[in-house]
């Protein structure tokens, strides 16, 4: 396997590309289904992130051929971005602290709810009717 990357380039049977291609479609459809069927809470996070990692993993491993590359190149590709996980963890901890401080000491509303497009677009008309009555 390793010797193939030296001279001949990354050549593999077409079948594996078709399999991964179909798999990516299925997993994407599954992650869309999570939204379509309105799965919420911890289940939503788990499913979306698992599907995301599966897709990312297969794209890197098979489509980008990382699975067949030599370890020296694979670690160069995946090692430095791995450090970013520390940045993400730090910013998550910091973000949690900031938002709690804003709720606790700056009087921000913890229970505020976002408006939907239907409410925003309907708001003008309904309001107008109320005034008219």
């Amino acid at each position, binding site marked *: 396997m*390793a*010797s193939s*990357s030296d001279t001949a*380039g*990354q*050549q*593999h049977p*077409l079948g594996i*590309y078709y399999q*991964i*291609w179909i798999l*990516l*479609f299925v997993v*994407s459809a599954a*992650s*869309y289904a*999570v*939204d*379509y069927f*309105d799965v919420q809470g911890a289940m*939503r*996070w788990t499913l*979306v992130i698992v*599907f*995301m990692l599966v*897709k*990312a993993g297969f*794209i*890197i491993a098979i*489509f*980008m051929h990382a699975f067949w*590359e*030599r*370890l*020296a*190149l694979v670690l*160069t*590709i995946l090692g*430095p*971005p791995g450090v*970013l996980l520390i*940045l*993400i963890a730090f*910013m*998550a901890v*910091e*973000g949690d602290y*900031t*938002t709690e401080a*804003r709720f606790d000491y700056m009087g*921000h509303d*913890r229970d*505020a*709810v*976002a*408006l*939907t*497009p*239907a409410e*925003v677009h309907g708001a003008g008309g309904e309001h107008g009717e109320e005034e008219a009555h």
Partner: protein
Amino acid sequence: MSEAAATSMAPSDGVTGLVDDWTADKQTYHVPWGKAMMWIFLVSDTFIFTCFLTGYLNVRMTTTQPWPPQSEIFALSFGGAPIPLILIAIMTFVLITSSGTMALAVNYGYRRDKFRTIMFICATAFFGATFVGMQVYEWSKLILEEGVRPWGNPFGAPQFGSVFFMVTGFHGLHVSAGVIYLLWVARRIWAGHYDKKGFEIVEIAGLYWHFVDLVWVFIFAFFYLL
């Protein structure tokens, strides 16, 4: 030991291979230099996109205003009731399709099947352009109909607009650049530039294209779904 490894025709795999590669006197990566450089570029691009997404994580966590409901904002109706997030789902499928055609182009390139390689590269560029077209529609709908701006929107946290325009804009720029790059590569293949040199260029262009698809996987999950 290292002499034996350097002269050996079949380098060892795994950790022994890693040590051999890094202690070799000549070169570390046994790939064409263009491919190594593309990988290095993609690693740096990973840092840029991760910084954007981490910035998004931070503003999304720290804003005390509610986050706008993406599922409904990106809904589209085809005559009937609006289908949630359908435009983004179609964009995702278009991009995956383009990734598949790109993988086939790389494969046919190494088989030296120039005609199929060019056809599949052009198909990839076509799907890429379709993606950008849909993104233009998405942007104009959001700006003109929904009134989303980088500094505010009618639904909730104003950071929604700034994150949206920055992250999807930067990604769309990558797709647009990729379409131009692919067409340029296809034209050079057509002109016979790589007949003697070999078709690694298709794999190098493919790495860039798959990376763009890869970034979309994360944007789709974090910005649109969660």
